[in-house]
């Protein structure tokens, strides 16, 4: 199989890579670019652990081909903090202990960031519905919802 040459932007940086035509963006991020924040929980769009934002849209990177990133802007969990300064969502996830094993956390953070960008004051129901594409086997979700609510308050004040 001939490789596909891709030029894209990841977390604001211009990035070029070669990938196989059937290789997913998740595999490219993790195995070629060393961006291992996005996780593979299922590989079939069900768990959201691989969530990234492409051109402003939340997607599962396990269901995007690496080749499709050509000319796009990709945002991953690695771009969420500014240096040592955590994003309010990251900070609140820590404060609320909204993670245990942490496998789902990057996906939840990216999905929650997308949710708050589109709806800065979501109700609890809107948060639960908005994050329904992210599965967590550990926390029982409540702490995640509280963390997102709290982060929303902080971000509105900012």
């Amino acid at each position: 199989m001939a490789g596909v040459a891709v030029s894209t932007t990841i977390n604001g940086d211009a990035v070029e890579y070669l990938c196989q035509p059937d290789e997913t963006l998740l595999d490219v991020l993790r195995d070629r670019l060393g961006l291992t924040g996005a996780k593979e929980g299922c590989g079939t769009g069900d768990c959201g652990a691989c969530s990234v934002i492409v051109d402003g849209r939340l997607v599962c990177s396990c269901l995007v081909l690496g080749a499709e990133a050509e000319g796009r802007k990709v945002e991953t969990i690695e771009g969420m903090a500014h240096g040592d300064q955590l994003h309010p969502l990251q900070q609140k996830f820590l404060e609320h202990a909204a993670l245990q094993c942490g496998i789902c956390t990057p996906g939840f953070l990216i999905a929650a960031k997308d949710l708050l960008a589109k709806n800065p004051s979501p109700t609890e129901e809107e948060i639960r519905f908005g994050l329904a594409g992210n599965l967590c086997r550990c926390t029982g979700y409540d702490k995640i919802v509280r963390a997102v609510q709290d982060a929303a308050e902080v971000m509105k004040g900012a």
Partner: protein
Amino acid sequence: MRYIRPLSIEDAVGELAKAVGPAAILAGGSDLLVRMKGGFIEPELIVDIKAISGLADITETADGFRIGAAVPCAVLGENKAVRKAWPGVVEAANLIGSKQVQGRCTITGNLCNASPAADSVPALVAAAAKAVVAGPSGKRTIAVESVPTGPGRTSLAKGEIIEAILLDKRPEHAGDAYLRFIPRTEMDIAVVSAGVNLTLDDKGAIKTARVALGAAAPTVLLVEEAGQVLVGSKLDEGTLERLAKICSGACRPIDDKRGTIEFRRKVAGVLAQRAAAIAYKRAGGK
């Protein structure tokens, strides 16, 4: 395997038409990539249609709306004009998957994947939506219900691509609705579903009606008799009962772990009644 991203529909059709091995059209990939990973298909050529000019646009024409085949359902849901004219179609499209899936999935992909449980399809069929098909011998416009021919099978020939879905302009006093039954509250496949599209006369009596059922047969079912029974009524008790009976009778469902035949028949009728009531209210009926 080759991945290509043509810029024109002619190039895309040309590449598909001359492909020697198995070829696949890639829209949002939420079915295609899952099936590739599962080993159910091994295409030698993937034609990504998202860069084809015009395919990512929703345009309002003199006749209604043209929804390009590469428009993700999330974008469709943000379009106020379509949402106002066809709330049932949009709510059905927005039921597909999660926010992540919404960012990618298309109604055309939903239609062409040809699952009997595809959520947007009963709503599109009830809406009398049409598909614009581009192929090696030119373009044709067909009713959406003629696209799926069985689970996973379509009437599209080699080299053919659906370019857009067309929805009519709405007259006054019109409404549509879509409902599905799932055991969870989100992220699940319809056990059975119903789409209803109505127009009313000035007195609030139903003038035209189309009723479609999902997951009730190998393909979506357009239940013409159910539409007919609604015409002339104001959705009184008796009419609703007849509607449910006709819909239950029209089902040819399967028994599986998600629902029995008996359950699907019963719920198809109930959902048709409820969707009709919502569509009637949206059309301004009282």
